[in-house]
């Protein structure tokens, strides 16, 4: 990272703030920036597989970039993401473009309108350059449930990029784009960010409108940014958050981030610090459930937080060990209802045959959905079915409520809570495919934030001693304390010296591009 940089592909290695600032002043054009991103994507995609239908958005992206440049030339002021290339998960509607959720059942579907998050990206003058791979309908932790392709971890191509927003995380980690959007129902932004060595943020439930996001579990879903640093994630968050008449769960509270979307850096508040913060360490975290190198790094991360001036306090959320069970009941119950709309009648794939409507529904769904989606619909249908409702759904709802109260009580003693993001580093492709439960258990630290509506940020904290793969910590705050979570994450990031480290795959790319 230290060598001198020209105005070549290295422009893309600048922060989103720096890119936007250069586009606003005219030092570079949005068109040049977007062309560099498209070239880098074309070069890296055969190895990474982060994007579905690569090339599909190229023309639209070039037209958007030219329109942004034309507005600047006319003297108009540009938005906080001026000319910044962005990748979005393929469960966000972009008007006139395919939207598949990496599922065969949405083959041929074209989104008839822009999601609010997409409209706000455009309003901030970002340029969407790709739609990213994911686990089918966001169900999974490795992208192995994509019906289309396998995304590889830029740190090690034999390992998963995490999921379900694995394509978005891999695209940022590989250096294809500075920013990406994912969605997080049980950790789907934070876990792939952690496994790929980038930053992932799940805002408080109700901060970013879900209008135009394909619904998975509506009481848990939240859109979130992925970036190479906390201030960049905050910039994207601030550009998207805020009330929307089209999503009644989207709050009207004023949005507070790091002030990153202010075009002028001059008036920024004091740099974030951990000094004087009380950070809670959960008694329920069982080190025996962590991989060795995660456990080792966890201890050194706690020492580092304390060396930065944070006061570590033991707090308790006794229901934490039940989080995964609660999550899988609630999320899949809601999913079984949300996915009832894919019936082969209104849109998406239809498989005819037999005579009846019921048979058309069954065949279309059975051929259109992949194995994990069917398993989860089955589980959710079971949990809501007559005779089991109280035993499963009712109890899960009761524990989720108790967990919210336990977090509230913890936050009366501390400002934030810290956990590892994932109990393991990126696992090998194929390792957990036949064991759904092992895959689910990797969500133990991420699901509570969704169940309780809390903001949660994953920040890289080092590399595994033996694997050399990225490790991450997670900071959780009280509901609506998004700003405090981002500030603490930014402070930790500055102190940690991680400094937007790139994946080795991307380093190989730098060598080859400087040689050519």
């Amino acid at each position, binding site marked *: 990272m230290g060598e001198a940089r020209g105005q070549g592909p290295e422009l893309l290695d600048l922060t989103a703030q720096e890119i936007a600032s250069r586009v606003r002043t005219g030092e570079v054009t949005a068109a040049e920036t977007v062309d560099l991103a498209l070239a880098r994507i074309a070069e890296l995609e055969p190895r990474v597989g982060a994007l579905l239908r690569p090339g599909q958005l190229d023309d639209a992206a070039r037209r958007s970039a030219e329109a942004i440049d034309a507005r600047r030339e006319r003297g108009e002021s540009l938005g906080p993401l001026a000319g910044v290339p962005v990748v979005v998960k393929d469960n966000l509607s972009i008007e006139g473009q395919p939207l598949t959720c990496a599922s065969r059942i949405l083959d*041929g*579907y074209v989104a*008839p*309108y822009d999601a609010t998050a997409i409209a706000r990206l455009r309003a901030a003058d970002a340029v969407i350059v790709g739609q990213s791979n994911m686990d089918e309908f966001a169900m999974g932790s490795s992208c192995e449930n994509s019906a289309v392709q396998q995304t590889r971890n830029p740190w090690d191509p034999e390992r998963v990029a995490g999921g379900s927003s694995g394509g978005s995380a891999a695209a940022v980690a590989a250096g294809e784009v500075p920013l990406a959007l994912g969605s997080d129902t049980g950790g789907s932004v934070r876990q792939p960010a952690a496994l790929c060595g980038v930053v992932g943020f799940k805002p408080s*439930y*109700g901060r970013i409108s879900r209008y135009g996001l394909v619904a998975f579990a509506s*009481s848990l879903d939240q859109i979130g940014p992925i970036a190479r640093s906390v201030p960049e994630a905050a910039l994207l968050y601030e550009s998207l958050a805020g*009330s929307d*008449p089209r999503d*009644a*769960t*989207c*709050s*009207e509270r004023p949005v507070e981030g790091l002030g990153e979307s202010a075009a002028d850096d001059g008036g920024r508040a004091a740099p974030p610090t951990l000094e004087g913060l009380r950070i809670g360490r959960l008694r329920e975290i069982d080190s025996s459930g962590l991989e060795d190198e995660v456990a080792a790094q966890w201890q050194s991360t706690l020492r580092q937080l304390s060396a930065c001036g944070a006061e570590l306090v033991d707090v308790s959320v006794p229901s934490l*060990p*039940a989080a*995964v*069970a*609660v999550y*899988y*009941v609630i999320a899949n119950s809601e999913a079984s209802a949300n996915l009832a709309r894919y*019936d*082969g009648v*209104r*849109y*998406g*794939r*239809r498989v005819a045959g037999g*005579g*009846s*409507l019921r*048979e058309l529904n*069954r*065949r279309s*769904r*059975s051929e259109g*959905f992949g*194995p994990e989606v*069917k*398993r989860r*619909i*089955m*589980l959710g*249908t*079971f949990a809501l*079915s007559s005779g089991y409702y*109280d*035993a*499963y759904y*009712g*109890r*899960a*709802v*009761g*524990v989720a409520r*108790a967990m*919210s109260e336990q977090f509230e009580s913890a936050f009366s003693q501390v400002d934030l809570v810290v956990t590892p993001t994932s109990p393991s580093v990126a696992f090998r492709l194929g390792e957990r495919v036949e064991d*759904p*439960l092992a895959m*689910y258990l990797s969500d133990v630290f991420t699901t509570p934030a969704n169940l309780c509506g809390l903001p949660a940020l994953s920040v890289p904290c080092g590399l595994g001693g033996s694997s050399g793969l990225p490790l991450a910590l997670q900071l959780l705050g009280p509901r609506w304390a998004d700003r405090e979570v981002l500030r603490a994450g930014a402070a930790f990031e500055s102190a940690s010296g991680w400094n937007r480290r790139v994946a080795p795959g991307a380093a190989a790319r730098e060598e080859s591009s400087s040689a050519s």
Partner: protein
Amino acid sequence: MTLRPEEIRRVAELARLELSPEEEARYGAQLARVVEYIDQLSGYEPSRHPREEALVEQPDEVQPSLPLERFLDNAPERLDRFLVVPQVKKVDGG
């Protein structure tokens, strides 16, 4: 808890899924393991009251909605302004 094959078939019918015998066996075993795991919730009290969310209200005014044509563009089969499905109602009182 084990899931009997009849149970799996009942749930599949409710979910409008058609499972092959091989899928029934595989999903049955995998679901049984997951259900066994979530049975740890049996120590907790059921509740019908999830986390309360304050919803934002809107004035009760008609807003423009998606034009019909845009919706029908994605229909697998249409006739004029309608979606086509197999006959639902039996003709001869049967």
